[in-house]
C-alpha cells in the first residue's frame, strides 16, 4: 500500500466577482483538477508549479485542512478529513507561511507543549529534540521567545516542531521561502539527512528548484490544478528537450562551424573562438575527439541543463509542451 494515494482529487471554490455596481456573479474556480498520484514509503517528492497552480491546496487536502470537492485521498491508509485527529498523530506539517509555535513563549516551551499535544513519551521526545538541536543548531535560541526569532531560526524551530512526534510523513509547504542562503542550506541539509534515514516520507512544495535538485529524486510539476510532469529531473530534461552543452574554447577561429554527428552547434561566440555544442546523441568524448582533429583546443567545459529554464518554458506553455513528442 502506498503511503499517499490520490485518485481524481479535485477542489473547487466558488468566488463572487463584481459584475456591476450591485450585482455579483458566482463563479467556480477549479484549484485542483483531478490529481492522481501515489507516493511510496520513504520517497521524497518535490512539487513545483506557478503561484495558484494548486500545490498548497493539494497539500491541505492531504493534511485534512480542506475537504476535497471530489475524488479520493488516503494518507497512511486514513481519510484526511474524516480521520483528521488520528492522521495528525502520524504526519508532520510545516507551512512556510504559518506557524505551529507559540509566539510569546520561548521556543523550548513550544516543544514541551507539543509533547503534550501529540502525547509523546518524555524519553522519545527528549531523544528527538536532542537530535534536532544538534542537526539544526537550536541551542543558541532555545530560550528566546518565538516572536524575537529570525525567519531562519523560526523555520528551524518549525521543522523540529513537526518532527518531535516521529511522523511517518512530513509535508512541507515552501519550507525555504524567504530564507537566506545559510538557512536554506541548513534546512536542505537537515531534510537530506532525514531522507537518507529512509523511514520518513517527504512531500514538499517549493519555488526554489535547488531544493528539489538537492532533495528529491521524483519531481511533480503541477499547473492549472493538473499534474503535467511526474518523474525524475533527468526525465523532465529529456522530455522537454533540454540538453547538456559542451563549450569549446579554441586557439583560433575555424573558417566555418564544424559539423559533428549528434552534437549540433548552438552558438558561436568570441569571433568564432568559442563554440557551444548541444549533446544530442554524441558523448562529450566524441565531441572532443571530433574537434581535436580540426583544431587546437584551449579549454573544454560542460554546462548542465538549466532546470529553471525548462520550468519557465513549461509554465508559459504547458499544453504545447505536453503535446510535444
Amino acid at each position, binding site marked *: 500500500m502506498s503511503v499517499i494515494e490520490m485518485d481524481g482529487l479535485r477542489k473547487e471554490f466558488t468566488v463572487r466577482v463584481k459584475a456591476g455596481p450591485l450585482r455579483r456573479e458566482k463563479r467556480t474556480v477549479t484549484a485542483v483538477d483531478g490529481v492522481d498520484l501515489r507516493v511510496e514509503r520513504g520517497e521524497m517528492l518535490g512539487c513545483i508549479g506557478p503561484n495558484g497552480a494548486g500545490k498548497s491546496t493539494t497539500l491541505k487536502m492531504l*493534511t485534512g*485542512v480542506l475537504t476535497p470537492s471530489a475524488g479520493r485521498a488516503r494518507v497512511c491508509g486514513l481519510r484526511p*478529513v474524516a480521520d483528521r485527529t488520528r492522521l*495528525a*498523530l502520524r504526519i508532520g506539517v510545516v507551512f*512556510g507561511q504559518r506557524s505551529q509555535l*507559540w509566539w510569546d513563549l520561548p521556543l523550548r516551551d513550544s516543544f514541551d507543549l507539543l509533547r*503534550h*499535544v501529540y502525547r509523546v*513519551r518524555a524519553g522519545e521526545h527528549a531523544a528527538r529534540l536532542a537530535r534536532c538541536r544538534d542537526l539544526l543548531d537550536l541551542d543558541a535560541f532555545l530560550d528566546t521567545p518565538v516572536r524575537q526569532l529570525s525567519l531562519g531560526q523560526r523555520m528551524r524551530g518549525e521543522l523540529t516542531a513537526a518532527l518531535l512526534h516521529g511522523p511517518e510523513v512530513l509535508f512541507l509547504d515552501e519550507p525555504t521561502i524567504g530564507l537566506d542562503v545559510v538557512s536554506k542550506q541548513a534546512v536542505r541539509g537537515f531534510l537530506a539527512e532525514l531522507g537518507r534515514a529512509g523511514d520518513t516520507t517527504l512531500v514538499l512544495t517549493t519555488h526554489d528548484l535547488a531544493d528539489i535538485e538537492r532533495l528529491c529524486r521524483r519531481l511533480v510539476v503541477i499547473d492549472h490544478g493538473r499534474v503535467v510532469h511526474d518523474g525524475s529531473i533527468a526525465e523532465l530534461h529529456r522530455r522537454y528537450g533540454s540538453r547538456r552543452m559542451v563549450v569549446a574554447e579554441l586557439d583560433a577561429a575555424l573558417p566555418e562551424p564544424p559539423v559533428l554527428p549528434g552534437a549540433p552547434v548552438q552558438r558561436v561566440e568570441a569571433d568564432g573562438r568559442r563554440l557551444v555544442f548541444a549533446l544530442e546523441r554524441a558523448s562529450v568524448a566524441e565531441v572532443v575527439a571530433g574537434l581535436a582533429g580540426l583544431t587546437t583546443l584551449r579549454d573544454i567545459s560542460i554546462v548542465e541543463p538549466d532546470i529553471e529554464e525548462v520550468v519557465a518554458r513549461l509554465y508559459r506553455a504547458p499544453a504545447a509542451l505536453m503535446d510535444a513528442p
Partner: protein
Amino acid sequence: MAERGSAPGVAERGSAPGVADLAGLRAYRALLGAQARSQAAYRTSFVVDLVGNVGATVFDVVTVLVIFGVTRELGGFTLRETLVVVGLSSCGFATADLLVGNIERLPRYVRTGLFDAVLVRPLGALPQLLLMDLPLRKLSRAVFGLAVLLFALVSADIDWTPGRVALAVAAPPAAAVFFGSVFVMTATVSFYWVDSGELANAVTYGGRDFTSYPITVYGGWFRALFAYGMGFAFVSYHPALALLGRADPLGLPSWAGWAAPGVAVVAAALAALAWRVGVRHYRSTGS
C-alpha cells in the same frame, strides 16, 4: 517535563484521540497553561485590562438601577425581581464571553493561519482555539456577574425549595452554555461570509441586552423573534419566574422556567453541528 511515562505514547496509534480521554485533557490543560504564561508576559496591561473589563458589566446593572430611579415597576416586575433577571443574564453572558467569546475572532484566526495550524494537530479545533486565545482578563466580569446574581438571589425574598435551589445552581451554567452556543453559531457564519461580524454582534450582544430585562417590556415580532425564535427567553426570564414563584404574564406554563437546561443542551448540539459543517466548508487562504 514531569509526568514521565504516564502519557500513552505514539505507539498507541489505533485509538482515536478525543476530548474525553486523559491524555487529551492533559493536552488541553497544557494549552491553557501556555495561554496563561503568554498573557503573563504582558503583566501590567493584564492588570489594567482585568480592572477595565468590569466596567462593561457594571454598566448593565447601573442601567437597570437608573431605570428604577424613575419607575417602581418595569414590565410588571419590581427592582428586586428584575435584578434576578439581570443577574442570570450577566453571570451567564460574562462566563460564556470568558470561555467562548473570542471565537468571534475566527476570521482573524483564518487570516493569520492559526486555523490551519490548529487543524493539523491531533485535537479538536474549537477547544484548541478557545484555549489558545482564552481572554483571562475577562475573568473579572464573570466574577462580577456572579456577585450580582448572588446579591439578587439573596435580596429577592425567594421561597427556597429543593427544586428552586437546584434551578438556581443549574440556570447560570445553562445560560452560559446557551450564550456560548450563540457565540459559536454566529462565528461559523464567517466560514461562508467573512464580513459577518456585525451581524454576529447584533445577535450575541443584542441577546445579552434582551435577556437583561423581563421580556414583558418588549413587544410584537421583536419579542417573538428573540425570546422564542432564538430561545433567549429561557436564559434568564423563565428561570427567574420559576425562582420567584411568579406566573408568566405572557401565559407560558410554569415548567418553562425548568426547561432552561434542556434548551441550553439543544443549543449546544446545534452549535456543535453548525461548527462541524462550517469546518467542512472552510476555504483556508492562499499559499
